[in-house]
Structures are given as structure tokens and as C-alpha cells.
């Protein structure tokens, strides 16, 4: 492979597109210095190669991975693709190149820099998905459940199976705000929608009641003699709090429910 000339690959941001980058890199025997999505924003001295997405080329790469490396590698690469690591595209390319070279041993080369970086990024992604299995907070809107999350990684595909199994007889929606993705489960069918916008509607009186009960439970269950905010923050980072019913008031975000209480009072008057 030639590393001498700097080449930048540009692709369309899809998984198939990235697999075509792998194809291109093998066919031309070159290693890009960078992989970007779409046109480069700044003037660049490097050569920019636009990699067109071709389903046929992508399938050839995707088929080769389990045969020449291991079936688990494809899973690792899929998770890596959801990761928020800055250079995830290039890491996936380097990982697969090493995989094709070393075969199934790639999974055991834990001290290798590429493998290590991929494992760390995949862990960050799957760990965030695991945390969110617990931290997602649904609200009930006339029998439909809806929740908003703000993860760093695109965790929706990783938590979909868990929630569709758990709430298999409900209709629900989990909206990933930063990535504008949603898991929609309606009459026993799950679907992941992209590029959508969503806002939680305002809560009903019954919904407010259960929120208050939950907050009451949360406040009561902590032992004040053992108050340990640092430990709590380590285990439940603050960035999740704004979407968690019981933590919003700790952040000073209780204005919504306060407004509603005043509105309710006005109506009673």
C-alpha cells in the first residue's frame, strides 16, 4: 500500500458508502489520510477522491468480512459505525484492513493501537446504550408512550430490541434529539426513522401524578446521612439529567410542571 501521497476519501455517510471506501482502498492499494462525509469544507492540499456508493461493491466487502475475519467483526464494525468517535470512519477502514491481513487473530490483538481505539469507541457506544436502557423516561400520552434522549452515540439501533421486547404490547416512540432519529413501535411493528423532528406534548393530569409519585419516591429513598453527590454523578453523568423526570428539579428545570400547576389552578378558579 502506498502511504506517500495524501488522499482524502469523501463518501455519502451511509454504511454501504463506507464499505465502498474499503473496496476503493483495496483496489487502489492506498490508505487515505482522512475520510470525510460530503464535500471538504476547507481548501485542501490533498487529493480528494469522491467514493460513489455502489450496493454491489458494498455487498462484496460485507460478505468477505465474516469469511476472512470473523462473524463478530461485522458486528463490531456496525457498532463502531454508530459511535461518536471523531475519526470513526478511518478507524473502521484501518481495522478492516488489519483484519483482512491478520484474519481472526485481529480480535485478540488487544494491544494494537487500531484495535484498542476501536474497542474503546465500541465500549463507549454500547455502554451508553446500556445506561440508557435504564435512563429513558417515558411519558404516557393517552395510552401512547414517548421519550426523548440526548445520547452522544447513535444508540437507537442498540436499544431497539430491548424496548420492543419489554413493551411489546404498547405503542411507543423514543426520540434521539441530537441525531434526529426515532424508534417507533406501533401495532407490534418497530421502525427506525431518520431526519425527523419531535417535541413532547404537554402532560395530562394523570401523567403529572405519576411523575410526582416517582419524584417523591426518588427523594425518599436516598439516605441523607450517606449523601454522596460525586458518586451519583460518576454513575449517572449530568448530561442525562435533563431528560430524567426525577433529576430535572435538581437542574432547576422544574418550570414546566410549575407552569402547569398554575394553569390548572386558573382553570379551577
Amino acid at each position, binding site marked *: 500500500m502506498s502511504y506517500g501521497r495524501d488522499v482524502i476519501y469523501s463518501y455519502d455517510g451511509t454504511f454501504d458508502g463506507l464499505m465502498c471506501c474499503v473496496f476503493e482502498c483495496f483496489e487502489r492499494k492506498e490508505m487515505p489520510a482522512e475520510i470525510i462525509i460530503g464535500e471538504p469544507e476547507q481548501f485542501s492540499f490533498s487529493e480528494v477522491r469522491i467514493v460513489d456508493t455502489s450496493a454491489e461493491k458494498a455487498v462484496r466487502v460485507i460478505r468477505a468480512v465474516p469469511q476472512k475475519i470473523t462473524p463478530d467483526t461485522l458486528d463490531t464494525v456496525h457498532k463502531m459505525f454508530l459511535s461518536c468517535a471523531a475519526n470513526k470512519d478511518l478507524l473502521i477502514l484501518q481495522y478492516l484492513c488489519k483484519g483482512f491481513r491478520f484474519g481472526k487473530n485481529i480480535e485478540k490483538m*488487544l494491544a494494537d493501537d487500531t484495535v484498542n481505539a476501536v474497542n474503546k469507541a465500541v465500549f463507549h457506544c454500547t455502554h451508553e446504550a446500556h445506561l440508557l436502557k435504564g435512563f429513558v423516561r417515558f411519558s404516557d400520552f393517552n395510552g401512547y408512550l414517548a421519550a426523548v434522549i440526548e445520547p452522544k452515540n447513535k444508540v437507537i439501533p442498540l436499544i431497539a430490541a430491548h424496548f420492543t421486547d419489554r413493551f411489546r404490547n404498547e405503542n411507543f416512540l423514543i426520540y434521539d434529539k441530537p441525531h434526529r432519529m426515532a424508534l417507533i413501535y406501533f401495532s407490534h411493528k418497530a421502525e427506525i426513522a431518520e431526519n425527523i423532528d419531535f417535541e413532547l406534548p404537554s402532560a395530562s393530569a394523570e401523567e403529572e401524578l405519576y411523575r410526582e*409519585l416517582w419524584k417523591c419516591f426518588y427523594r425518599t429513598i436516598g439516605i441523607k446521612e450517606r449523601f454522596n453527590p460525586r458518586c451519583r454523578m460518576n454513575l449517572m453523568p449530568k448530561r442525562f439529567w435533563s431528560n430524567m423526570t426525577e433529576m430535572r428539579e435538581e437542574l432547576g428545570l422544574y418550570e414546566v410542571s410549575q407552569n402547569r400547576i398554575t394553569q390548572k389552578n386558573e382553570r379551577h378558579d
Partner: protein
Amino acid sequence: MDIAEKLKILADSAKFDAACTSSGVNRAGGHSDGIGNASSCGICHSFASDGRCISLLKVLMTNYCLYDCKYCINRRSNDIPRARFTPDEIAELTINFYRRNYIEGLFLSSGIIQSPDYTCEQIIEVLTILRVKYKFNGYIHAKAIPGASPELIEKLGTLADRMSVNIELPSQKSLDRLAPDKSKNSILLPMGQITRQIQQNSYEIIKYKSAPKFAPAGQSTQMIIGATPDTDFQILRLSEAMYKKYSLKRVFYSAYVPVGDSKFIKPADEKPPLLREHRLYQADWLLRFYGFTAGEILDEQHQDFNPLLDPKCNWAVHHPELFPLEINRAPYEMLLRVPGIGVKSAQRIIVARRQAKLDYKDLKKLGVVLKRAVYFILCMGKRADGLIYTETGMMRQLMSASVVRELENNGYIGEQLSFFDAAPTLEDRIKCLTGEM
């Protein structure tokens, strides 16, 4: 009394039960027409202001109680507000919290009302409503009530995922003093029954796939730390015996918090022994995952934990003859005994060293805490570059950041610190620190 008030009273009465784990059983919801599933790794849904995980709706059915155990917040003689949930109220609350993904399931315990049998029947009724009426497939942890009849305990076990009987105090003497209504036997009897039925059930499931599962997530217990003069060694030996004899999944330790007018035990302003509880959990992990025995961690001469060092570091510095270890050759069991190497990093070392010889920078990538491990290991026959071995330097690295901070704040760092035969003056000074951490 409205539901919010009941919830407040009955959660407050349940908060000293440490167990809130939802682990130990994998159960897919599948195609049933109910709600819920369970994940064997457990899922934490929130963390309380004290940093403890909230996974289950942890409440008592009632905090009225016939008994007068002196350590317990719900003892008959304690003057606190009392309440009682109806079985339907608990079930409805559980389902509504579960649907909103607030919780992983229910942890139900109760004060003893009328009789142990009656109390147990009430708990069974709640679980039956959840499992049958709501077809609830999520996690349920139920307290087995000591003194309830074996038939009721058996019924409870087919409805719950995990069962627990709290030992509370580690010796008969302490029980006599603080829990006059309980005896060692009344606690161990249901525990033994549950263990037997879990074992029997594991055979039945092999024979008949459809056999009803009995407490598939196993059994746990809890001990209160610091309410009685029992030593750490006594407690740890008891835990070890319970893991072996009763195949318990977990033993929980709960630092005693003086509750209400508990002048029998300790002044109300004394802080809970959190460091001691922390050391017990560390030692508990060594028993379950690191192949240690209680006799290796503590012994007759050293009945209490070293407040400055965690039990594994403490063991390692007292066994200099076994170190340093060559990382590229040492067996897994020995890797586990190196401070700074945990179960995951030891497994990674075993895998990675088959591909290439490992050096210090590689160990860092595998998650080894080098600042501790360097004193005990060699990579390819070599010590880490620039490692200067002094006892004070090593001790500083082996102590946790919070211990170092405490010592620094009190001006003790900088002096000669020694692991062995610390001068009495130092020990005295340390004692005053440990009460506060």
C-alpha cells in the same frame, strides 16, 4: 391517606435495605400478551442522592411491625408514621412506574403484622396480582418472612425472581442483644429451604422444560455493619460460609445509621461506618471473583481491615515473596492477585499475550492501573523505567485518592509511612480519620 403519603412513608421505611439489584435472570418477553422482560446483567434506572443504584421500586407493604429489633427503623417502639398499602395499590404503582421505564421491577418487603404466615400471604397476593392479572414479566425481589410456613415460602419462590432473608447481625450474641424476637435458626431455616428448592428446581428444569422456575435469580442476604462489636473477620467468614453453604448470589452490607431513639446502640450523631462497609464489599469481591479465602484477607491476629489500604493491596504488600510477577508468563490466578489488575484486564492480558509480548505501554491499553501494578510486575524481565522503590512512595500509590486527600489535609503525608508496625501515634491519628470517611 393518599397514595403519595403512603409511598413516602413506606419507601422511607425500606431505604435501609441495600439490595436493589435486578440481576441474575434473563427472560425475554417473547410473544406473550403481558409486559416486561429481565436482563441478567441488571439495569440501573437511576441513582439516589447517596450514590446507590435505584433499580427496583423498593417499598414495604406495611411498616407496622410486631417485632422490636433495636437496630430497625420500623421497630414497634419507634415513634414514626405508619401506613399500609393494599395489594392492588402496590401492583398498580409498579405497573405504572414500569411502563414509564422508571424501574426494573419490584422489591417487596414488609413489617410483620398479625403473624409471619399472614404477612407472607399478603406478599404472595401482591405478586399474584402482578404475575397473573397484569401478566408482569419484569423482575421481582421478595423478602422471605422468617417464621412463615414452608408451603408459603415455596409459593413465594415460584412468583419471585430473587428471594432474600436478612441475617442482619452476624452472631447469635448480637441477635440476642438487639433482635430479641429473632433467632439464628428462624433466619437460617427459610434460607436453607430456598437453597434446597433452587437446587432441586435446577434438576427439574433439566428433566421437564416446563417446570415452574423457583427463584431463578437466586438468593441474597444483608448484614448490618457497626451496630454490634462483631469484627470484620467474623463478618467475612460468615459471608464466605454463606456463599459456600447456601450458594447465595450476594451478601449485602449496610453501614448502620442510627435511627430514631436508638440509644441502645450508638449516639444518634455518630456517622455511619462507610469506609468499613466499603472494605467489606472489596473483600466480598475478592471472595467471589478473585479466588481469595476469608483466611487470606484477614486472620485471628488481624481481625479488622487496614483503613489505609484496600484488602487486595494489603494482602500483596504482606506477601513480597510472591512478587514481582512476569506478566507474559504468570498464570491467570496470580495475575488476579496483582494490585491494579482486575478480572477484565487479567483476561485481556491472557488473550493479548498470545499475539505479542506485552510491555508497560500495552498494559495501559488493556486497562491495567499501572501506578499500582508497577510495584508488583515485570514485563519481559524488566522493571518499569524510572521506578524508584521506596516504601512511602509505594504506599502513596497504593492508597486510594480519598485516603491520600484525608492524610494530606491533616498534614501526615511527607512523613515516613509504613505498612508494617506503624508507630502508635500514627495509628491513633489515622483512627480519627477513618471514622469520618
